[in-house]
């Protein structure tokens, strides 16, 4: 990975809309509790990291199976609005 080549523009837009995306502490609670994750590889933690590393498609695929059940929101120790965050990631990064 080359951080010099990461497109910061979309990420900056996401941070403006969802300031919480910068606050993940990487604990993995969201991934562990994910209902969709049982069937398909789903991880908000990994998706946020992928976005910081400029891997947008990887991030979207890690969230594609999300059913917006909100369990991750209940378990997040930082109290981040994970559910809304996933929605915003889809909005910003699914644009063509």
């Amino acid at each position, binding site marked *: *990975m*080359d*951080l*010099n080549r990461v497109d*910061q523009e979309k990420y900056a837009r996401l*941070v403006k809309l969802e*300031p*919480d995306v*910068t*606050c993940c*502490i*990487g604990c993995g609670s969201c991934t562990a509790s994910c209902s969709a994750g049982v069937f398909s590889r789903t991880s908000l*933690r*990994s998706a946020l*990291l*992928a976005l*910081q*590393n400029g891997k947008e498609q990887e991030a979207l695929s890690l969230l594609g199976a999300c059913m917006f059940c909100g369990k991750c929101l209940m378990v997040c120790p*930082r109290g981040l609005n994970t559910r809304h965050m996933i929605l915003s990631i889809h909005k910003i990064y699914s644009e063509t």
Partner: protein
Amino acid sequence: MKKNILIIGGGPAGLEAAASLKHSGNNIILIEKSHQLGGHLARWDRLFPDGIRAREVLDKMIASLDGVNYFTDTDIAQINILDRSYSVILSNGISVLADAVLMATGFDLFDARKKEEYGYGIYDQVITNADLEDWFRTREDSRIDHPKRIGFVHCVGSRDEKSGCRACSKVCCATAVKQACEIKAEFPDAQVYCFYMDLRMFGKHYEDLYLKAQKEYGIRFIRGRVSEVAEQIDKTLQVKAEDTLSSKPLKVTLDLLVLMSGIRPSQNLEPVRKALQLAKDDDGFINERDAVYELQKTSMPGLFVAGAVTGPKTLPDTLAEARAAALQILSYLADNDKKPAK
């Protein structure tokens, strides 16, 4: 009867112990090897977690000395163990028969040049935590010229057996996060990265500082140890690490790299330690009598320790130890008076 208490070291531990002992009716002598009081604190600008000024804290400490005898530019020339006291000759020629000695000799910052792969002293744009504090205080450092991409490397000379230290230095995580926020405040357009292995934000308000760094300052935390740094022809730095959370190797170009030099034993102390027959730990710090109950005592009666002489400490920890040592010294002297002479 008035007793002589010698305090070796005029940093925070020595100053606070002296201030705690000044009304005890004993004769306090404090010595400091450098030309000024304050130790490393005199070189620091602001303190974690809340950013209070190091100078203000130090001024309060020095003001509370209030009449204590102290000598700067003074070291131990010779120290001998007697029956119930220590015979000390100072480098300024003064002799002291000390009934109790407090070693408040502090620490050395790790010499970052020893980690050659990071290039301190070789590449222009690699500096240390102490260099950055100097800049915060004086604004004089040509290396810091509107950097756009800044990196902080945690654990330099800590948790690194090859550099001679397995242990954590305790204060560098909080210092790195503090400095990352401060430099981002100076250069709001800069992207700031912290390369860490574990973030050890154990103290009161430290976790708040971490959240503030993420949320208010947008500091990017990358879990992984920087493996190597290379200088480019334009003086920028190519930095390599693994992003261990995604298990992928990563590289980034930076304009400034700040190495968080850890806390190492004071080298200056060796002759005194040997003369006093004090044991040191594997990591080189002086051993306290035990690590839970008798933190301020040593294997030698009448010889006490406070602060980073026994290992990395935060400033509040050091001050608490200094006050504890003062009480233990008084209690030791009182007990000694009751014992019949040999």
